[in-house]
């Protein structure tokens, strides 16, 4: 009996993690040492503008690890995942919003909201949430790539081919 319970619990956890490309308990993103070189972000360089290309040096403030979500927020993420599986998107959104009141700068939560809107076909809202997630994501390449991928899909659906291609390129360059 306990084994059965355990296996069900495991299955639930795995399912919960399926909705997104990163796991709830993913290890913290690698952090560069202060002053370490980082490749320039090609998307930021206007093509053929003749401007001098400067390597981007992250200021000291950027190089830090975003703490893992707290147990409270993880609980809400699990709850939202279950609600989403049950097709109750409004409830899932409400749970994520509740988590955001606890950790309003947690980029994963904004990413989850973007996904939930995409799931419901409310594409006009997706990009803002994904962009908000990116703005807070610091150096979390997996999350950033997922956000850009999401933005690419959204733009595609909304008929913005060029925009979609740009976003896809950004998703690729991060990965």
């Amino acid at each position, binding site marked *: 009996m306990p084994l059965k319970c355990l296996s069900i619990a495991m299955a639930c956890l795995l399912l919960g993690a399926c909705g997104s490309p990163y796991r709830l308990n993913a290890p913290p993103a690698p952090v560069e040492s202060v*002053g370490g070189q980082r490749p320039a*972000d090609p998307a*930021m360089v206007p093509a053929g503008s003749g*401007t*001098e290309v*400067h390597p*981007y*040096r992250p*200021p000291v*403030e*950027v190089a830090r690890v975003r703490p893992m979500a*707290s*147990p*409270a927020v*993880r*609980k*809400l993420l699990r709850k939202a995942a279950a609600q989403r599986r049950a097709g109750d998107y*409004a*409830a899932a*959104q*409400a*749970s994520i*919003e*509740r988590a*955001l*009141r*606890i950790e*309003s*700068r947690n980029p994963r939560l904004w990413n989850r*909201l973007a996904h939930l809107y995409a799931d419901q076909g409310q594409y006009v*809202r997706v990009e*803002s*949430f994904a*962009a*908000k997630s*990116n*703005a*807070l994501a*610091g150096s979390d390449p997996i999350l950033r790539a997922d956000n850009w991928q999401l933005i690419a899909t959204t733009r595609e659906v909304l008929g913005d081919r060029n925009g979609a291609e740009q976003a896809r390129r950004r998703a690729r360059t991060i990965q």
Partner: protein
Amino acid sequence: MARQSKRRRKPATRKKSAHRRKMSARALRWHIGWRWLSGTLVLGVLLSGGYLLYLSQQVRLAFEGKRWTVPARVYARPLELYEGAPVSVAQLRYELTVLGYRKVRHPSKGAEWSQARGRFLIHTRPFVFWDGEQPARRLMVRIASGRVIGLSDVVGRPLDLVRLEPAEIGSIYPAHKEDRILVRREDLPEHLVQALLAVEDRRFFGHHGVDLRGIARALWANLRAGRAVQGGSTLTQQLVKNFFLTSERRLWRKLNEALMALIVEKYYSKDEILEAYANEIFLGQDGDRAIHGFGLAARFYFNRPLTELQVHETALLAGLVKGASYYNPRRHPERARKRRNLVLDQMHALGFLDERALRTYRRKPLGVTAHGQGPQHRYPAFIQLVRRQLVRDYREEDLTSEGLHIFTTLGPWVQKVAAEAVAKGLRRIEKTRHLSAGSLQAAMVMVTPDQGEVRVLIGGRRANYAGFNRALDAHRPIGSLVKPALYLAALSEPQRYTLATLVGDSPLRIELPNGDIWTPDNFDHQAHGRVPLHRVLAQSYNLAAVHVGMDIGVQRVVDTLHALGMEREVPPYPSVLLGALPLAPIEVAQIYQTIAASGFRAPLRAIREVLDTDGRPLQRYPLVVRRTVDPVATFLVSEALQEVVREGTARSLRRWLGESLVVAGKTGTTDDLRDSWFAGFGADRVAVVWVGRDDNRPTGLTGSRGALPLFGRAMRSLHLQALDTLPPTGVEYHWIEDDSGMLSAEGCKGAIRLPFATGSQPHLRSACGERGGQGMPDWLLER
């Protein structure tokens, strides 16, 4: 003969006929009388039958149709408890008090708590939230240094997350001002029913609506006393009276009342009647709001649900039936106490209470909350905002009658702290600036930066006074609060403007479309020459602002204001550049929310969810964000706004918040010192404060002397969190020689480190910058 006979016959005939006539007239009269009588009788029977039918129709309609209008109830945000939650001991105590939880030594049932220093034991009530019911729980909460450091159940198993039920903060009652909270028969405590029987209607469960014995007893009692000391009305009659009739004291009305009472008893059970009575009866007046029913009365007098009241408390409520204003326990506590004890005595006389219980309850204090302490009185300004947001989506009659549950974003503790800061702050300013006491007014709006949830709304210096709501309705010129929008517009063109760009702060004359000449001036009436843009903002120089604004175009500034969330249409007059732009504090709060959230506008919301009367989800007001302004430019403006506090016009904020706290802010002052503004934000709160006079006369206060101290006082108590905004992609930092605007290096004289949109930094290097400065880390020399 014939004639004679005729003649002869005539008198006889006359006599006869007279007789006959007399007879027939009598008969006729009799006949008519009889017919009239019987007709009347029939008509009477018909009419009274019809009338009875009409009455019973009325009764049934009233009972089965919509019986009560139940106003929408409005709730604050629920307090979330989890490890690390920023909750102080004082806050938790306050939130529990607002919830009407009882502080006891050993909590044993719902809505009780105990405290030993930082350790709380709390038994919560069950509550229906948007996402389902949360059962009652028994919690142990440990708090240290303003944070929750432990959350578990009573046997010590850790809990991840629990929310307390939200406090009720008001209701939206209709034009006829009837407010009530509906209770069901099974929610009526037995001791309340007993108390009612004891003093109002002993034979309630025995009579058919009218109690002849009761009337006789009352008559006898009244005769003996020589005045009306007892009423013979049954609960059913009282209900009918409350339900249908006016309070005129006439026989006809008494008769009607008795008839209707009989009809009610014929159609409905005693329990149904009791339930109706408990919801209908008038139990008090609160300003223009009429308190109906025991459900609301329990809230109104004790700030608790009816089910949680003790015997002496329900006895007090039952005592109010006789005369809610005469026995008003707040105004006439002694009278109310006597009346309550009389009710208790009667309960004892009928065997509902034993001798010991009677003695115990008679000794208890009244226990009513102080006047004005009820939720209705605490947050009138916020409730007004909620109402305005609701009427966009709901019809007035649905709000006032359908018993909706409205879940809002108000933070009761934050609101209380902010309201105290405003009241104290104004008193202090009036004293130190020698202004007459009470002459100043203020408004404050506080929101969460990332979600735009309105936590605090203060409409005047007496926050619990439902008067003019300055936070929503006082439109005053915003002065220099407009400047962040101006510089945001400028910095959105990084090839033209950076924080290091030197701007001329020199006199200028601008011809307006109507031919007038506008000559703006600095606050100190000085021109400051060429000043770097970041300092222009920090020192709030007007001349430089107008130069920049005219250069990029007033329309661009207005467009930026719109992008930041201003909805009002504004003609692009040059004077807008210095804030000749009347806005309400809440509109300004929207603008600063967008800046604080790195350019992601979240429309300000006061409501999260609406449930119907049975707790089913009806509508959600979801979080919406939209990136509306350039993130890089917004970041640069935020950095400059930090400088305003560090070394600009808002320096004095450091007196309140400490030397090292990273916070952004902007002061605003209007012509002749009429309006004093301050807007600022840390990581967790954005707030806008206005100070001025209702008659719009000068106050003698700048933004930093009027509104700033109120902001500082509130944020100090609330432990505003330091800003830790990540620079967005496309920002890089450079050392700049401030006076020349040239690239410099760390360690060089006058060098400061500024953020730039990638590639927009100056290319000319200062002499020291050429040498590479002194003592620099290697990586800065690579270039």
